[in-house]
């Protein structure tokens, strides 16, 4: 990524969003402690979030008022880092807010520390229900996997009318959470779960798993996991002659899905909070600005990162009205925000720290995500 | 101590006896039906040309190789099937042909390892440094000091890393380590190899002194001058079999033995 590119993009975006800006903010200096897996096996999610956030901050800085800087710390997806990084941000009085987090398990280890030092956190990609209401200082702008999985379950059984579903999930908090919610909702809505099986995150070979699936002859296969595995499952399923409808989660809502899975993911239905095909002006300018800055299409993580940045901007503005922005005032401001507009829809936080929001159901068509033909 | 060695002909009960000892490596018979006995209180020489199987006999006696057949008795008990440590704990100590001291240890520590079987404090006692544990350690250190004096090194080398000593001194450490276990029989595998004449004479004196402590000795050695001077009795091996057995002078004068060493003229 080049700084020049971001600046140029932000300029364009700033123009597009200019009407939204109010110009009463004091010259606050806001430092964001950003942490996610930025290297190692799972760096892609964190780096995407970072890109979205960078774009939002460049735009906020352009707008004037408060200035935003990032202190980025790589957690490499290692749980041991959770506490240390949290303390690093807590101890650094310059840090006003913490953003990022790729893994619920690392956030869970960090939350007690943040809770002690009263530092607000706005996470973008961690969906574990265990994080609901975990601390008054912890918020996230994604829905929990319990909520999302249940919506998908109902959608699959009711709207799509699938009657025999095989459930696959990656063996982690995310995968287990969505699969459980999906299974319960789908069964309640009348579908039969003909089998379920889990795989370890990072698995590449699903042939055996799919051989098992094939033997159960399902109408649909739900993949509770990320795009890297979903793409491989799709491709290997086609290779084994499986023709069932593929369903997946927001973990698969990523432009990389089509790059990796190509023809095999055609027709797969996923859900998520960001839909590149919904042509609102904000989405359109985000898409073009992102493309200009990073010469690639944004993923759902980038969109959530971007929205988190914009939400922070709104909270800072709100807090600045009552004096200098502090951790505490920022935290209060987060709680008061209502329907902050964004590319993933409006943001409002529930008292539990979770976000109130809606899902899009999207299908892969001709190599892009489009609104699924059937909507609930 | 006694200037006169015990008369080998006298019916002293043997401390160690091998009957029909046979060792095979793969299909190869390294030792074939060997009989010999070491009298209590004797310095017994085991000699033979290179490759005759001397070290193999020693390895069989100490449990390093399992004999294919034969009986081994030590101090009145059968030791044939026992493991190395179990045999050692019965009082059969050895040194190695190529000195095998523990690389990173000091002289004192190495010698103390030899006294391993004398320790028995529980882990808890060790952590708490109970009086009993401390007394055992102190006694062992004192005895190690005595042994270092005994082998002629003196206590001042106790803190040196053993492998940094000269070759001759390392050999003495090895002997002290073996003696630390209070053995009844000491097996010495070429203890004089690589030493000059003065050192050899000193080690020979040491071996006599060991015997004077009441420890029997089985000695593998190539230097016949020393063997002649030191041993009460010799067993000569060739091709894994007993070639001769008896009084050193007689054995060494045996043309068959000489031929085994120097080769036969064709």
């Amino acid at each position, binding site marked *: 990524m080049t700084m020049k590119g971001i600046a140029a993009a932000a300029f364009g975006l700033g123009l597009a969003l200019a009407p939204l800006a109010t110009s009463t903010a004091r010259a606050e200096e806001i430092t964001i402690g950003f942490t996610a897996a930025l*290297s190692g*096996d799972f760096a892609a999610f964190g780096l995407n979030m970072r890109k979205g956030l960078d774009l939002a901050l460049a735009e906020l800085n352009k707008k004037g008022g408060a200035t935003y800087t990032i202190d980025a710390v790589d957690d490499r997806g290692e749980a041991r880092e959770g506490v*240390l990084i949290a303390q690093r941000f807590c101890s650094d009085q310059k840090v006003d807010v913490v953003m990022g987090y790729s893994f619920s398990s690392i956030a869970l280890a960090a939350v007690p520390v943040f809770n002690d030092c009263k530092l607000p956190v706005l996470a973008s990609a961690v969906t574990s229900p265990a994080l609901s209401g975990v601390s008054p200082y912890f918020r996230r702008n994604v829905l929990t996997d319990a909520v999302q999985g249940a919506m998908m379950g109902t959608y699959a059984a009711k709207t799509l009318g699938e009657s025999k579903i095989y459930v696959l999930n990656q063996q982690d908090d995310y995968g287990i959470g969505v699969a459980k919610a999906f299974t319960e909702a789908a069964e309640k809505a009348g579908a039969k779960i003909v089998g379920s099986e889990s795989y*370890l995150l990072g698995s590449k070979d699903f042939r055996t798993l799919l*051989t098992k699936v094939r033997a159960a002859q399902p109408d649909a296969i739900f993949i509770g996991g990320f795009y890297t595995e979903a793409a491989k499952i799709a491709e290997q399923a086609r290779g084994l002659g499986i023709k069932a409808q593929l369903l997946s989660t927001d973990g698969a809502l990523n432009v990389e899905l089509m*790059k990796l899975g190509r023809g095999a993911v055609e027709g797969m239905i996923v859900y998520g909070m960001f839909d590149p095909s919904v042509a609102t002006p904000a989405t359109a300018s985000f898409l073009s600005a992102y493309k200009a800055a990073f010469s690639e299409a944004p993923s759902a993580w980038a969109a959530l990162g971007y929205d988190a940045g914009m939400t922070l901007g709104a909270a800072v503005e709100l807090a600045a009205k009552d004096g200098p922005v502090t951790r505490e005032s920022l935290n209060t401001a987060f709680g008061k925000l209502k329907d902050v507009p964004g590319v993933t829809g409006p943001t409002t936080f529930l008292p539990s720290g979770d976000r109130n929001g809606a899902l899009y159901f999207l299908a892969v068509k001709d190599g892009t995500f489009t609104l699924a033909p059937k909507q609930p | 101590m006694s200037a006169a060695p015990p008369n080998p002909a006298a019916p002293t009960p043997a401390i160690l006896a091998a009957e029909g000892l046979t060792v095979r490596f793969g299909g190869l018979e390294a030792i074939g039906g060997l009989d010999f006995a070491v009298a209590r209180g004797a310095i017994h020489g085991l000699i033979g040309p290179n490759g005759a199987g001397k070290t193999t006999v020693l390895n069989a006696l100490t449990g390093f190789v399992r004999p294919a057949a034969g009986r081994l008795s030590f101090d009145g008990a059968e030791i044939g099937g026992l493991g190395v440590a179990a045999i050692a704990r019965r009082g059969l100590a050895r040194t190695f042909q190529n000195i095998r001291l523990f690389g990173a240890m000091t002289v004192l520590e190495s010698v103390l*390892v030899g*006294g391993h079987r004398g320790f028995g404090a529980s882990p808890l006692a060790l952590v708490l440094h109970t009086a009993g544990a401390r007394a055992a350690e102190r006694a062992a250190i004192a005895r190690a000091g005595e042994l270092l004096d005994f082998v002629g090194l003196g206590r001042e080398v106790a803190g040196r890393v053993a492998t940094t000593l000269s070759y001759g001194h390392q050999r003495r450490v090895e002997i002290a380590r073996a003696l630390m276990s209070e053995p009844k029989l000491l097996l010495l595998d070429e203890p004089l190899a690589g030493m000059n004449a003065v050192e050899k004479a000193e080690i020979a004196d040491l071996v006599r002194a060991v015997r004077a402590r009441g420890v029997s000795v089985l000695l593998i050695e190539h230097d016949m001058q020393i063997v002649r001077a030191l041993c009460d009795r010799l067993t000569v091996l060739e091709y894994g079999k007993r070639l001769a057995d008896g009084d050193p002078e007689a054995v060494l004068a045996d043309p068959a033995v000489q031929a085994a060493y120097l080769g036969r003229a064709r």
Partner: protein
Amino acid sequence: MDYFGQLLANGLVLGAVYALAAVAFTLVYGVVRLVNFAFGELFMVGAFLTTSLMLPEVRLVGHVVPMPGFSFPVAALVAVLLTAALGVAVDRIAYRPLRRAPRLAPLITSIAVSVVLQSLAQTVWGAEELRFPEFELATYPPVVLFDSIYLSVMDLVVMASALCAMTGLTLFVARSSLGRAMRASAEDQTAALLVGVPVDRVVAAAFAIGSGFAALAGVLYAQTYGFAHSSMGFLPGLKALTAAVLGGIGSIPGAALGGVVLGLVEALGAGYLPNGTAWKDAISFVLLVLLLYVRPQGLLGRPELNAAGRGSLLGGAAEMGGWLRGVFAGLDRLLAGSSARGGAVALGAVALAAAAGLLVPSDYWLRILTTVLIYGMLASGLNVIVGFAGLLDLGFVAFWAVGSYLTSILFVLVLKDGFGVALQETWWLFYLNLPLGGLLAAALAVLLGTPTLRLRGDYLAIMTLGFGEIVRIVAINWVGLTNGPMGIRGIPAPVLFGVPLGTPRAQFFLALTLAAAVVFIVARLVRSYVGRAWVAIREDEEAAEAMGVPTARYKLYAYAMSGFVGGFVGVFYAHYQQYISPLNFSLFENIILLMLIVLGGLGTFIGPFVGAVIWIVFLQVAIDIPFVQAYPETRFALLGVILIALMLFRPQGLAASARVPLVMAGAGPGKAGRAEGAVAGRAGT
């Protein structure tokens, strides 16, 4: 039947890839007795190079770079050749200078090389998976056998290329002059030199061919699963190593057989066991452990290789980097001096740490220091088995996990969730759990240690690695017991008689107390007949045995002690972090701990802490380097480079000269800690 047939076919494809990569391990191990962990990364490099060469353009370090767009065979060939050259270069730079170094040094270096290559690959190719390009063969419809067994054309190509490569290699090794020289060098290097074989060049050839095979396996794997990624080599590398050991490391037909067996067992196990896919990796490690137990040399291996690891992990000449000796001489004098006054130095160190704990103003630095203490303690535990008893253990994290899970399950899942107990009422249980976790882990250690008694050296390492992975996979999959990957949260911070010890400063002092206790207990045992027995086993197992040391029993003691420390620290760790998940106990953590003690100095009390300081502090300080902020993955690349440099110039570890006296402090009639002095009388030299 068609289910079985499909599983069989799946297993064969996977097995073919494993077999090819296993050849790499086996070939190099045969000649230089080195388990080169970096083959996993050469596998990855081969995949990336092929993918890149086939594309019209690739984004490298963020810039779009035009590429030749070769056809698959050409790209694969070029990639294999380039990777082979890279393998030779790695050997030349990182391993050859260490041929005579202590045995662990090249092993650690190979891990460091892995870290560097992986981080560099991520810097160059990015964090996203790179799609393997479509080419004509891959677009053909699948071949369907018996109506139900689907195999893609490329699957057949994979199996055929594996078969051809293995046959080619077998012929090459059997017939060619270089192949013969390779076998001769593997059997007897001295004899090979005497007949005029240039052994260095043969080793280079082994690295070239091995790396080429790893690359070929990577290419086929990338093709089969449709991607290339910087971390793609780790698990297949581990599996290939497992396959090589299964087959009997050093044997080429063994590698082929091991690979196929592993592929089939994984496919069939995953296919027939409930939720088998999640247990797949555990299945292969269970197989490995069972096989090594009944047949330590592997299926087709030679038993003497199991004995080749005999002797000291620390031994061998340490005459490296002559000019650097001066640099370290001062340090060595200092450390050697300090080891003679063990007790005083230990008190000084604790006082210094306590002063730091009082004076460091930042909670962040307190947490860093606490982490240093935790890793230092864990490494001290591992040091008992590796550093003192000389047994290479890659499964130590299992003991750590046992302690952590014991206390977490008791506090959270049983007391809080099960009985609704208010946790502040049962604060005392934490102090009870410390020894309890230790004892449970020690019991597990003895259980796991018993079957390893027949193994030595690298075989032992692989078997313990298998144990560690099995325990971790059980922790992930046995959701009912451990809460699985969700982990256990809400573990209370320690409390002492109503005083909460949750602040970073309190936690630091608690950790310091525990660390002092751990070092004290370890030191008291090491400085006794027990420690002497351990070191004797490490230095010369046979000689120790001949001195009447029952070596098997003392190895188990070492396992137990090591396990105790792991479990003990694990209990504290859970309450410190207040959340644990299986992510905490990965193989990589074990490798880190091993690195810490090798870096610091095996078999010293201070070494684990020296290593922990370097590791933890470097990683934290490096975050602030602007370059690292822009390219996060370079932090680990940098660390890898530092590790390699340290190993090349100081293979025995930084604090190696802080030699531990093995005699009970205060046992002499004189002053405490002067046992040697007591014996030495007054004659000082």
